[in-house]
């Protein structure tokens, strides 16, 4: 009996949190944007950025999912490794599926001139020159990044408790403060913005090693986690 499959099945039983709720949230936000577009008769281009809602949702969802399913899985005598692999696979499947739908909607959006009302919702401004594969890649990588970022933060909490998170966020805050102070002191902010405006596609590529790092960290933390 493959227990990773058991973990996958466990997640699959909770379609609400993984599939229905994020799309209800996203489509609701989309509907509002369409209504606004209709009301102003498409006379202005709208680039709403509402697509971010599904990504923020996934970041929060994985934290809730892990907090609830990890103790349950260990209680069912599942290995931590199997839990990690099964949950990662679920994130991969959901990211792959969601990205396919996002890609489809972004293509429809381009073909229909922004749903007939010049609405840019699924197709982001910089995406117009990109191939469908590159678009899909961006949707997919960003979602995986959100999942594993949420996963690693929850794993810190699982392993080191609330105090672990306090220490983690304090250190992060300190690093950011020092970094931003240094940037101001050496007057490098403009350089950074210019660099980003030329290399923003590179940012997505750089998320791939980040995802790997988050995943390895999460796995290491969960291996030493206990439940009671």
């Amino acid at each position, binding site marked *: *009996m493959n*227990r990773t*499959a*058991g973990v996958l*099945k*466990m997640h699959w*039983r*909770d379609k*609400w*949190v993984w599939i229905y709720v994020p799309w209800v949230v996203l489509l609701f936000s989309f509907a509002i944007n369409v209504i606004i577009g209709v009301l102003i008769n498409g006379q202005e281009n709208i680039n709403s950025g509402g697509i971010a809602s599904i990504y923020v949702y996934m970041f929060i969802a994985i934290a809730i*999912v892990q907090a*609830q*399913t990890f*103790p*349950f899985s*260990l*209680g*069912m*005598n*599942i*290995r*931590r*490794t*199997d839990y990690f692999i099964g949950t990662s696979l679920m994130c991969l499947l959901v990211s792959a599926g969601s990205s396919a739908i996002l890609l489809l909607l972004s293509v429809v959006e381009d073909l229909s001139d922004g749903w007939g009302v010049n609405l840019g919702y699924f197709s982001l401004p910089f995406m117009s020159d990109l191939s469908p594969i590159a678009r899909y890649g961006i949707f997919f990588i960003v979602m995986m990044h959100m999942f594993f970022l949420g996963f690693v933060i929850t794993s810190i909490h699982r392993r080191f408790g609330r105090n672990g998170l306090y220490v983690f966020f304090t250190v992060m805050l300190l690093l950011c403060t020092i970094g931003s102070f240094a940037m101001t002191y050496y007057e490098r902010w403009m350089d950074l913005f210019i660099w980003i405006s030329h290399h923003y596609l590179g940012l997505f590529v750089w998320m791939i090693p980040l995802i790997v790092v988050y995943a390895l960290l999460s796995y290491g933390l969960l*291996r*030493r986690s*206990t*439940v*009671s």
Partner: protein
Amino acid sequence: MNPIVEVNRLNKTYGKDTVIRDVSFVIEQNKIYGLLGRNGAGKTTIMHILTAQLFPTSGDMLVFGEKPYENNRVLSRLCFIKESQKYPDSFRIVDVLAVAASIYPNWDQKYALQLVEDFRLPLKRRMKKLSRGMLSSVGVIVGLASRAPLTIFDEPYLGLDAVARNLFYEKLIEDYAEYPRTFILSTHLIDEVSNLLEHVILIDAGKILIDEDADEIREKAYTAVGAAQQVNKLTAGKKIIHQESIGGMMTTTVLERLNGAQRREAATLGIEIVPVSLQQLIVHLTGNKGNGKVAES
């Protein structure tokens, strides 16, 4: 003699608190064990360590001859039902059973559904909305239907009414007879399970006090019932655990094995010898009075 669990000098400390102190014991195949002790004695901690959900501070243990940590050969033969088990918020009883079915190799779905009916559980209700007793019933069902070679129940009866508890004992004995396996029951309702238990491990303050067959333990003490004068004569100078008298009658419990001569003496004095309940014995042994200290009478 077929040990499936071997624990050797297990210790668990939290900072300066020692929860488990040099605990060693062996669990043999196809027996029903009772892990008894007061609240906070360390029962639950030991079971968490056995199932690799907690890590010991020192000491080692083998379950089915191997270390249980991240080991599917061990974990797939285990089922640990604990009172504090948490379930995902969205899960209904039917979801828990479905997940259990896909995880436990020996799972018997028909039997599980039969038990759901016996315990009168609403299959479609969310775990969050269940009463304490119903929650315990779900645990009992998962534990029995998993048919795991080593099934561990930690306080399985919390919130169960007398009818449901009896049902549990009945089903456990029934299924044990049909599919022999090893059970470890931890509880403080000692009297109710004492007939079930074949072997008792008694823990107090993180240490093992007793590790013996249940029958052996029962013979460690006896209760003499008879006329006060005669009873006093028989029990003079012995370790008296408990004593009460009504009118001229006296009931005295003595911590001592009764030999043939004493039995004959009791008979000639007209004293009735009654076996001591496991509960009485354990209350005495783990009471604040200290081990084996003579009770003031």
